[in-house]
């Protein structure tokens, strides 16, 4: 049953800096990857639809969540200050970081001051975004991921391919093989039963949890009114990290702020149902500063900008900051389902990544807004109603264009803007395609038409068009 085939990290096969179409082509050529993705996204789509359907006020919740997030964006400076004030009053130390480098340096300094050289980590997109693990590694510190999927990815020396389930591109047998090969204390005869794999992860991490001095987390929400942070999770690794160590460092993107504690009644209905397709996730932790005799005594919060204020400046694009990282848009996206996350070349893949990455790092991901057929499935499921297609089109309109394409588009516009030229062009096309009229379609076109005919025929114009018919019947 056990295979000795070494698991090759998927991310190593997909060129990280290649433009999306090229990276996607590589991913499309990996049948196991496509099978795993189709299976996993299909499972979660059905679960999400079921539990969202249980709430008769789902659409009203989305409207409220969307408006709360827009309100947060409008009032970001005052809410950030309010959060800082309340968290500080409750015993937390609040830091501000302009960029990844600054956040990493603050975090590393706190770890050293705590007399530690390693940390346990709760799954956090913000720390992936700033490459905290890599920074720690380079400075003699070690970060241990404790979320099961993150652990799988870390053991495989791979990169996450999904916001919620970073190891979504592996199936159970591959995960068993990764554990067997790379987890020093993997039980012998480990099967690929998910329960057995979860048990192996429990045993592997338990000692570390109980002895860790410092933990690093992100946060799903930061409540301005109370100065509280919220982490939503399933396994209990989050609770372990947030409760057992003496020092806790939470790195929180500025957009995570919520005005009021009561707003959780909206978001905690939407988030679990949209992400894991559960009515509620197994564990949610809420903490406010530090508390005598309960949990970490030394509590730090690093408020992270790292490009967010740039996104905030774009009136249309700023709605991307409403994202609560549920990943529903990835799971329904027909493009993501076929390519997986690595092809996007950014920690935020899928539809949300296609609008967030190019805004967080201007000029670096101009190919991503085109990685969508604009089918709109993402917008339909987004719990905070981010109009992803609208932002995709907006970013396409802001971004640079290739000269040849620009010329072609300009020419098409020039013709279409003049009815006489347009009619002449239609006539010319009918005339030019006469040799193929009997066959009815074209099978092979030169580039760039070959990009179409690679998989589909192109019909040729008919002998008589609508205009002729209309003129005839007007007589």
């Amino acid at each position, binding site marked *: 049953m056990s295979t000795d085939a070494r698991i090759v990290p998927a991310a190593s096969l997909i060129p990280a800096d290649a433009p999306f179409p090229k990276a996607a082509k590589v991913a499309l050529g990996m049948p196991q990857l496509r099978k*795993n993705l189709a*299976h*996993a*996204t299909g*499972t*979660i789509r059905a679960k999400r639809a079921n539990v969202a359907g249980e*709430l*008769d*006020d789902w659409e009203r919740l989305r*409207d*409220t969540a969307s*408006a709360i997030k827009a*309100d947060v964006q*409008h009032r*970001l*400076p005052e809410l*950030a200050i309010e959060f800082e004030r309340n968290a500080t009053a409750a015993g937390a130390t609040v830091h*501000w*970081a*302009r960029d990844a480098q600054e956040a990493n340096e603050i975090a590393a300094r706190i770890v050293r001051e705590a007399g530690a050289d390693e940390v346990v980590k709760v799954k956090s997109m913000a720390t992936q975004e700033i490459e905290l693990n890599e920074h720690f590694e380079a400075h003699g510190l070690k970060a241990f991921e*404790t*979320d*099961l999927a993150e652990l*799988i990815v870390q053991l495989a020396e791979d990169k996450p391919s999904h916001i919620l*389930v970073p190891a*979504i591109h592996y199936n*159970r047998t591959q995960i068993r093989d990764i554990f067997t090969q790379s987890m020093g204390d993997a039980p012998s005869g480990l099967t690929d039963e998910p329960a057995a794999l*979860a048990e192996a992860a*429990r045993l592997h991490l338990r000692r570390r*949890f*109980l002895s860790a001095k410092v933990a690093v987390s992100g946060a799903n929400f930061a409540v301005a009114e109370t100065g*509280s942070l919220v982490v939503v999770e*399933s*396994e*209990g*690794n989050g*609770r372990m990290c947030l*409760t057992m160590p003496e020092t806790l460092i939470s790195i929180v993107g500025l957009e995570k702020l919520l005005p009021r*504690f009561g707003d*959780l*009644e909206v978001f905690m*209905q939407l988030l679990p149902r949209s992400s*894991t397709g*559960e*009515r*509620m996730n*197994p*564990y*949610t*932790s*809420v*903490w*406010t500063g530090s*508390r005598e*005799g*309960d949990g970490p005594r030394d509590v730090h919060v690093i408020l992270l900008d790292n490009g967010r*204020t740039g996104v*905030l*400046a774009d009136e249309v694009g*700023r709605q991307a900051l409403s994202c609560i990282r549920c990943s529903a848009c990835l799971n329904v996206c027909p493009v993501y389902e076929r390519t997986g996350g690595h092809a996007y070349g950014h920690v935020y893949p899928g539809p949300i990544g296609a609008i967030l990455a190019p805004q967080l790092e201007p000029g670096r991901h101009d190919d991503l807004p085109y990685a969508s057929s604009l089918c709109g499935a993402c917008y339909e499921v987004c719990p905070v109603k981010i109009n992803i297609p609208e932002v995709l089109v907006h970013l396409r309109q802001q971004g640079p264009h290739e000269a040849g394409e620009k010329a072609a588009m300009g020419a098409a516009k020039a013709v279409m803007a003049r009815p006489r030229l347009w009619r002449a062009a239609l006539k010319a096309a009918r005339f030019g395609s006469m040799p193929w009229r009997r066959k009815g379609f074209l099978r092979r076109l030169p580039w760039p038409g070959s990009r179409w005919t690679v998989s589909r025929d192109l019909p040729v114009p008919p002998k008589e068009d609508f205009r002729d018919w209309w003129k005839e019947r007007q007589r």
Partner: protein
Amino acid sequence: MSGAREEILARMRRALEGAGEAPVPPREYRRALDAGVDITAMLIDRLVDYKANVHHGLASIPAALAGAKRVVVPADLPAEWRLGGAEFVADEGLSTADLDGMDAVLTGCAAAVAVSGTIMLDTGAAQGRRAITLVPDHHVVVVRAEQIVGHLAEALPMLDRTAPQTWISGPSATSDIELQRVEGVHGPRRLKVVLL
């Protein structure tokens, strides 16, 4: 340090120049279930759905604790809940190693939400600090009838907002393998709910 703070605030203010008024969020969603819904029955249904066991009445506590020899309890756990043959150890600053040696934990809770099968702890009466409900592998939690509400929005006002909270919906679980839910990872793998 403070340079970063001032600069980020300035960036935000610049970004928002001319952004206009903040919208006022509509609040037209539900804050309660329809009258007449049996919230206890719903809570049981949702707990069982997420693989928690449900027991009824104080007399069922020994059965809920079955198999546990040493049971940690918060120091203020009502004496009448300490039923059965287990040794009850009150938490008065137990070490992590001590906690790791416990077979189970018995606590009360702050609220329970029927619609999602969620038990809420806020370290208030009969709940203890967070670590005691985390390290032992078996959690028995007592829910009094008046602590059960239908909807999340009804439960939030019952919590001590700035106390450390843990909202629990079923035993520890993961969906990380093929997005299928499997129970039992780092948190307690058995969750038993005793309804009074």
